[in-house]
């Protein structure tokens, strides 16, 4: 190969590479290099529904072009452990960039928990927030003839369940007081009653911050991140066939039905942070109104 041929080959390779990279560079130059991610939290919160939301939040933290996050919330809460997981993910994200929540129709119980670390909670007059509390149904009695390795293997005494629910309740109420204590007009005991509040009342008593739409929330998040020119990217959760339904069976145990992972065969007693009616026969509730 001659020297001229060598150079021709190098030039051709450089042009080819540039042809691939140039459009990307052009896009980067013309697009705003700042983004506000809108992450949707919808429906009952369970381990399964929380995972994709946590992934979206992680991406927001790792993607340098995302400078702020808006949580688009429409959920009555769900499992206690899943709600805590979501809370921790939101908290981690809020430590790195502005996070603002916007409540569509409900941001209650576990969903309210998840919104606590955000900078502001936007509500509409008809949306509801609150219901700070925990509940758990009695475990189903053992099957006749079942052999267990120990007295507490498949059941638990009411005393223990009361203590466990009290523990979760203290963590929940403690978190509310930590994040919103300065804004709240309510005492710790009033928060622990577990009432839900409509938007205007919530803004009045400090359970929420502003009346406004999700657009207002996006603008607020962008302002907080100091963005003038930004793009909004929406992260919708994948719609899978396996929806979490909270329901009861004859034994009075809350069971997780149609779960895509694992729980189909087990009626595991679950602690819930959920607003709404869960019909159970012998329910220990961590507050009055939940």
């Amino acid at each position, binding site marked *: 190969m001659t020297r001229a041929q060598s150079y021709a080959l190098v030039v051709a390779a450089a042009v080819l590479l540039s042809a691939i990279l140039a459009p990307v560079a052009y896009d980067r130059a013309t697009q705003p290099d700042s983004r506000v991610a809108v992450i949707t939290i919808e429906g009952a919160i369970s381990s399964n529904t929380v995972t994709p939301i946590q992934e979206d939040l992680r991406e927001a933290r790792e993607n340098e072009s995302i400078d702020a996050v808006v949580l688009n919330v429409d959920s009555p809460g769900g499992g206690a452990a899943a709600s805590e997981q979501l809370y921790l993910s939101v908290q981690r994200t809020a430590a790195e960039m502005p996070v603002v929540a916007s409540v569509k129709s409900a941001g209650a119980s576990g969903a309210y928990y998840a919104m606590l670390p955000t900078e502001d909670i936007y509500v509409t007059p008809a949306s509801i927030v609150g219901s700070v509390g925990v509940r758990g149904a009695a475990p189903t009695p053992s099957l006749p003839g079942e052999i267990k390795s120990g007295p507490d293997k498949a059941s638990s005494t009411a005393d223990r369940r009361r203590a466990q629910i*009290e523990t*979760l309740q203290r*963590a929940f109420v403690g978190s509310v007081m930590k994040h919103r204590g300065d804004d709240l007009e309510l005492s710790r005991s009033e928060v622990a009653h577990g009432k839900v509040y409509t938007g205007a009342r919530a803004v009045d008593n400090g359970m929420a911050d502003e009346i406004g739409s999700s657009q207002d929330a996006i603008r607020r998040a962008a302002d907080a991140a100091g963005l003038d020119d930004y793009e909004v990217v929406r992260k919708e959760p994948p719609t899978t066939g396996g929806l979490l339904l909270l329901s009861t069976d004859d034994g009075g145990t809350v069971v997780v039905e149609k779960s895509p992972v694992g729980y189909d065969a087990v009626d595991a007693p679950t602690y819930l942070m959920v607003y709404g009616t869960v019909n159970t026969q012998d329910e*220990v509730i961590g507050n009055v109104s939940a």
Partner: protein
Amino acid sequence: MSAPNSRLAAVFVVIVVVLVGGAAAAPYALGSGGGDDDPTTAANQQFQPDSVLPDSGAEEGEVSMDSDASDKTVLVDVGHANDVSGTQLEPLLSTLAENGHQVRFYRGQRRSLNESLRSADAFLVVSPRERFTDDELAGVQAFTDAGGRVLVMGDPPAVQAGGGPFFSLGGLEETGPQTASLGSNYGIAYGSGYLYNMATNDNNYQSIYARPAGDSALADGVDRVVMREAAPIRTGEATQVLVASEGTQLSTTRETGRYAVVARNGNVAAVGDTEFVTRENAHDADNEVLIGNLADFLVDGDKEPGAPADPDSDRPTQPGGGPPEPPRTPQPTPAPA
């Protein structure tokens, strides 16, 4: 002429080293090393065991009786669709039995209540779900007038309609205890709703503490008891024995007040809870002392034999005053302890 192979190889190596080395060094240069570890998680003081783990009071002590009375007969009502089983009352009933007293059950099958009361010294009614007939009320009144002791225990009406045990019967049945007429003769009434305390409680807002209201034998040796699901007792002529601790509120009005949970009027005592007597709760706080005192109360009476007397033995025992008694369907009646 081609470029020397050695030079091309050197260029290749230099480029690879610069790119790979640069990629490896970049995170340190840009200061973005590390993963998700951040101080916020550790700063969640509200999750630490010190902040969230509740205290559980010690469960100790034995149920014991002080009374020196012997061989008294205590009649336990299970004939009014009572929402209680012998197992639930076991701590009280076995204490009576251990101290040489007789426990009998009124089932409402062969004999009328008044007949059964005639041979009893004390009468224990827990959460009746059927009304007492006028005749039965008159019989209980005559029983207490003659010195017989009556202990009524009731709990708040079931909150969830449809989820309760009556759901399968297909109706919105009254699930509250039918204690109104029974208590009204003695100036005792059960208030609506349940009591709760958000500040001072035994790990649940409904698990309230109650303390003695004054000097009463029923409260002897009691510092505080735990009631799991208590209804307030409104006292007219009766004396408050135990009142719920400060800050206790009533579910229906949300008002804070001094609510009695145990009251006494002469030979009649009323308790606003049925859960405290179960074995699971019998040793919480001073519950065992209260149960012993209630057992003493039942056997300490001095009843004239034969009361309530049959008003006129010519008449059939079925009452004419109240509505005819429905045939007693076999309720899930408990086995005698």
